[in-house]
């Protein structure tokens, strides 16, 4: 039933629906406290951290990252919350419930910047785009802190 209505609607109001879904979902995403650690050259992957808050009424799904700094930016999870071995794996799509915030922070989720195109220099910044399942995007400017930085305030 739902699908029938949905199908009918899509035919009639496709452009309008796309616009509203973008507004209801990822348009309400707020990114705060973004930071990254300076890299040594470009041979090793870099990491960026941030808090992603869903201020809207519907769940949003973070599906990917885009930046010209790295060829392959991916959200990874360091699985050390309860067990001591740290091993990284792509985190897959991340759903953020309405009102919830997911933290990309050391020891947990992080934006892994693989195949750096240029060194990450302390004091500079780069822009990174978060893409969501509804087609929406949020772009954030990420400041690059020192290599020994431990959080966004360092």
């Amino acid at each position: 039933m739902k699908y029938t209505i949905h199908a009918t609607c899509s035919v009639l109001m496709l452009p309008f629906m796309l616009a509203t879904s973008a507004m209801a979902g990822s348009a309400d995403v707020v990114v705060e406290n973004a930071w990254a650690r300076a890299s040594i050259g470009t041979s090793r992957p870099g990491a960026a951290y941030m808090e992603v808050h869903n201020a809207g009424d519907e769940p949003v799904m973070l599906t990917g990252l885009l930046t010209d700094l790295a060829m392959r930016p991916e959200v990874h999870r360091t699985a050390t919350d309860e067990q001591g071995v740290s091993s990284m794996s792509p985190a897959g799509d991340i759903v953020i419930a309405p009102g919830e915030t997911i933290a990309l922070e050391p020891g947990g989720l992080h934006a892994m910047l693989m195949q750096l195109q240029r060194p990450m220099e302390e004091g500079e910044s780069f822009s990174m785009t978060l893409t969501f399942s509804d087609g929406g995007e949020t772009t954030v400017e990420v400041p690059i802190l020192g290599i020994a930085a431990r959080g966004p305030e360092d």
Partner: protein
Amino acid sequence: MTTITARRLPEPGTLMPYAAILLAGAVMWTVSTYYPARMPAVGPYEFSWGIWLAVTLTALWFARGLSRVDSARRPGPWRQAAFWAGLLLIYGVTQTGFEYLAQRMFFTNRLQHVAMHHVGPVLLALSCAGPAILAGGPDWLRRACDSGPARGVMRVTQQPAVAVILFVGLFWFWLIPPVHFVAMLDPVLYALMNWTMVLDGILFWALVLDTRPSPPARVRFGLRAALAVGVMFPQILLGALITFSQSDIFPYYAFCGRYFPGISAVTDQQIGGIVIWIPPAMMSVVGLLVVVGNMRRAGAEP
């Protein structure tokens, strides 16, 4: 070795196996100490002279003793098979690459302990290998087993009450969280933990699975059946306590790092809890069936 030859001058053939055991041990010790990264997985993760000598000498004396004991006391083919399986299992969980796993995950550690305390010792006790080992062993072994202190230790540890307290208590003791933490980090305590598990397991199951009526066996068949089943309940309780724990009660594994990082502390504990819950309970049931069978064969009253 030279002292042995000087004292008793046995024929060279009897010394060859000892020389082979020492030589093989020396090779494994060298690789384990200086080339640990090159040790194959079937070799010891950390070589132990104690375990190596205990296992190989027991095997040697048993094999040698088979032809020396009279047919009434010679274990039949399936009892011999149980002996080799039990010995190989205990060796396998302590002196191969499995040992690394047993130190890096709670549930593999529990598998190791169940093998050392329940399954391996049940197999060894089933084999009734004692007379053959004594017959195949050197004189000093028979003298030592016959000595006052050895008899005293056996008299005390084979009291049913003491045997149960040791069997249940030791398994619980090494799982008291602070005790487990230190035992996993301290090599001496770690070795002590594993030795107490194996020795206590053999003592307990040898008492329960004795094929003879009482006397000469220490306790009556009825009590043996009760022992086999009785130890199951505290084991189930412990398994349940750990399985249903919602927090990380054994943080050693988190601090040193789990071998499978994808398995969380609580999941690891759940699997480990079931490992010490189900298989030991099954061994109790097996033990009960064996006791009943022994009783029938002996034509005894419970």
